[in-house]
C-alpha cells in the first residue's frame, strides 16, 4: 500500500491545501509520495520534500504543464500510478477537474470529497449539500480519492528530507489551449484558510455596500465571502462564493450578513466553529445554525459593529 498525492501549486509555491491533502493521504497510509507536475517547479518540490510525512517527491517538469491542464496532467499521473494503491488530491477546482479524468482511464469509480478516512478503503463523505453523511467503501483495487481540504489539518512543513526524483513527462494534448487566468489579487487571507470570514448576501443591496464588510474584514484580518445570490447579482466576484457549488470554509468565526441561509449556502459554512448571523428577517434559516443571531438592519448594525470592535483593546489576528 502506498499513496500518490498530486500537488497543487502555481509553479512557484505550493498551494496551502496540498498540505491538508498530505495529512489525509498519510491517514490512508504512511507511505506518501507526492507528484509535482509543472514548469520550473524546483522550489515547489523542495518545499514539499521537507514535509516529514512525505517519503518521496516525483517531479515532472515541462513547459506543457505550466497551466495545469487536466488533459496534460492525466497521462503523467497514469504512468506514475502503477505502484500505488491510492491516488489522492484536493477536492477544489483543481482536483475536481483533474481526478475524474484519471479515474475513468484507470476504470476506477472515484470517491469524491471525503471528510474522514475510516480505513484504507472506507471513507465518510457529505452528500446532498452536507444534509447527509455517507459512509462508503470502495471495492476497486486501486482507489482515486479527492479530499475536502478543510476537513483535515495541514501537515507540518518543516523537518523532513524526502528525496526528489525527476522523471520525464508525456505528450502534449494540444487540442486544449490555455488562454488566460484572471486572478483577483488581494492582501486579505485566503477564503479557504482564513481564521475569520465575513460574508455578505443579497441583503447587501449593492457591490458598493460591501465596503461596510471590508472595513470590518480589515479590522479582524478576515477573508470576505458571499452567497451565490450576491455573486449572481454582481455585487462581488465568483471567487468569494461560499456554498455547495462554491467554496467550503471552516473558520473559527463566520459572520453572515444579509444572508438568508439557503441549504446551498449552509453547505459551505455550517462546520464553522462560531457562526454569527446578522439579518433583519428574524425567521431567516441562517439563524438556525447561528451561535449568535442579531436581528437587525445590517446598514445600522455593521457601522456599529465596526465602532464596537474599534473600542476593543486587543483583537486576535
Amino acid at each position, binding site marked *: 500500500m502506498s499513496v500518490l498525492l498530486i500537488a497543487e501549486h502555481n509553479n512557484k509555491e505550493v498551494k496551502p491545501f496540498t498540505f491538508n491533502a498530505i495529512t489525509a493521504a498519510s491517514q490512508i497510509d504512511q507511505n506518501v509520495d507526492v507528484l509535482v507536475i509543472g514548469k520550473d517547479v524546483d522550489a515547489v518540490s523542495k518545499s514539499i520534500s521537507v514535509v516529514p510525512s512525505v517519503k518521496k517527491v516525483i517531479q515532472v517538469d515541462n513547459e506543457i504543464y505550466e497551466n495545469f491542464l487536466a488533459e496534460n496532467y492525466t497521462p503523467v499521473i497514469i504512468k506514475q500510478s502503477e505502484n500505488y494503491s491510492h491516488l489522492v488530491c484536493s477536492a477544489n477546482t483543481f482536483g475536481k477537474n483533474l481526478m475524474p479524468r484519471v479515474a475513468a482511464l484507470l476504470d476506477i469509480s472515484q470517491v469524491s470529497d471525503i471528510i474522514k478516512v475510516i480505513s484504507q478503503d472506507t471513507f465518510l463523505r457529505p452528500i446532498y449539500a452536507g*444534509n447527509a453523511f455517507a459512509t462508503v467503501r470502495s471495492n476497486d483495487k486501486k482507489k482515486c480519492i479527492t479530499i475536502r481540504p478543510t476537513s483535515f489539518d495541514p501537515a507540518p512543513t518543516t523537518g523532513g528530507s524526502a528525496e526528489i526524483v525527476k522523471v520525464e513527462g508525456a505528450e502534449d494534448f494540444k487540442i486544449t489551449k490555455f*488562454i488566460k487566468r484572471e486572478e483577483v489579487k488581494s492582501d486579505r487571507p485566503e477564503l479557504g484558510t482564513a481564521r475569520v470570514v465575513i460574508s455578505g448576501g443579497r441583503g447587501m443591496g449593492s457591490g458598493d455596500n460591501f465596503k461596510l464588510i471590508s472595513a470590518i474584514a480589515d479590522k479582524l484580518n478576515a477573508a470576505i465571502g458571499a452567497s451565490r445570490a450576491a455573486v449572481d447579482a454582481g455585487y462581488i466576484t465568483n471567487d468569494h462564493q461560499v456554498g455547495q457549488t462554491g467554496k467550503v470554509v471552516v473558520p473559527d468565526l463566520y459572520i453572515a450578513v444579509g444572508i438568508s441561509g439557503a441549504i446551498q449556502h449552509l453547505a459551505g459554512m455550517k462546520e464553522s466553529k*462560531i457562526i454569527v448571523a446578522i439579518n433583519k428577517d428574524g425567521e431567516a434559516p441562517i439563524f438556525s445554525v447561528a451561535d449568535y443571531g442579531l436581528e437587525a438592519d445590517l446598514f445600522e448594525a455593521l457601522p456599529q459593529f465596526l465602532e464596537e470592535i474599534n473600542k476593543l483593546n486587543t483583537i486576535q489576528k
Partner: protein
Amino acid sequence: MKILVAVKRVIDYNVQVRVKDDGTGVVTENVKMSTNPPDDNAIEEAVKIKESGKVKEVVAVTVGEDKAQETVRKALAVGADRGIHVKVDGIIEPLAVSKILQKIVDKEKPDLIFMGKQAIDDDCNQTGQMLAALLNYPQATFASKIEVKEKSLEVTREVDEGLETIEVNIPAIVTCDLRLNEPRYASLPNIMKAKKKPLEQINVADLEVDTKPRIEQIKVEEPPKRKAGIKVGSVAELVQKLKNEAKVI
C-alpha cells in the same frame, strides 16, 4: 453541428433532504423531483446556441429509471429537438453513466456535449470529466461563458482563484456552472408540443456496459447537529460575547 446535453433527475433543490431511519439512504418517496439545476443551464446554453444558428440539433439524454424521462420532456419543452432515455434501475455511479454516455456519443456523434458540473444529490462532480477521458476529448469544466468559434470553443471557467479562459477544439465536453445563463421556463404550449417530440428509449442491457456499483454505501446518517444558539439584543452585546464568551476576536 449537433449538441448532446445530459440531464439528471434529482431531489428538487428547495427540498430539505431527510435521512431514512434505517440508514440506507435519504427519503425520496413523495418528494418533489426536478432536473439537476446546472443541467438546466446546460440545456439553456445549447438551445441558445441553436437559436443563434450555429447548431442544427439539440438532443437531450438522461440515464435512470422511468421517471427520469420527465427531465428529458422538460428539456424538450424549452427547446431540445429530441430525447433519449437510457433506462437503468437502482444506483448508478458516475463512471457507469460516463460509459453509457460514451455509447450514446458513438451512436449520435455530437460535436459538443454539455452537462451540469455537478449533480446536487451525490455531489460527485465526475461525469463530464470521465466522459471526456473515455472519449479522449478536451474538457472545459465549470463553464460560466461559452463562445462558439468555427472549430473550437472559448470557455471561461470558474476556478478557485477567479476565472480561467481556455480554448478547446471541437468535439469537446463542457460542464456548466449555474452562472452560465438564466434558464428559461417552459410555456404551456411548448410543454404540450414537447409531448409530441421524439423520445427514444434504450434499455441499458442493450448497450453492453458494466454498470455494477464499485462503491458500497455502508450507511447514510444525519450530520452532527449544531447546538441551538442564542439571539443577542444589540451589536455591543454581540461583540462582547464574541470577545469574552466565544473568544474568537
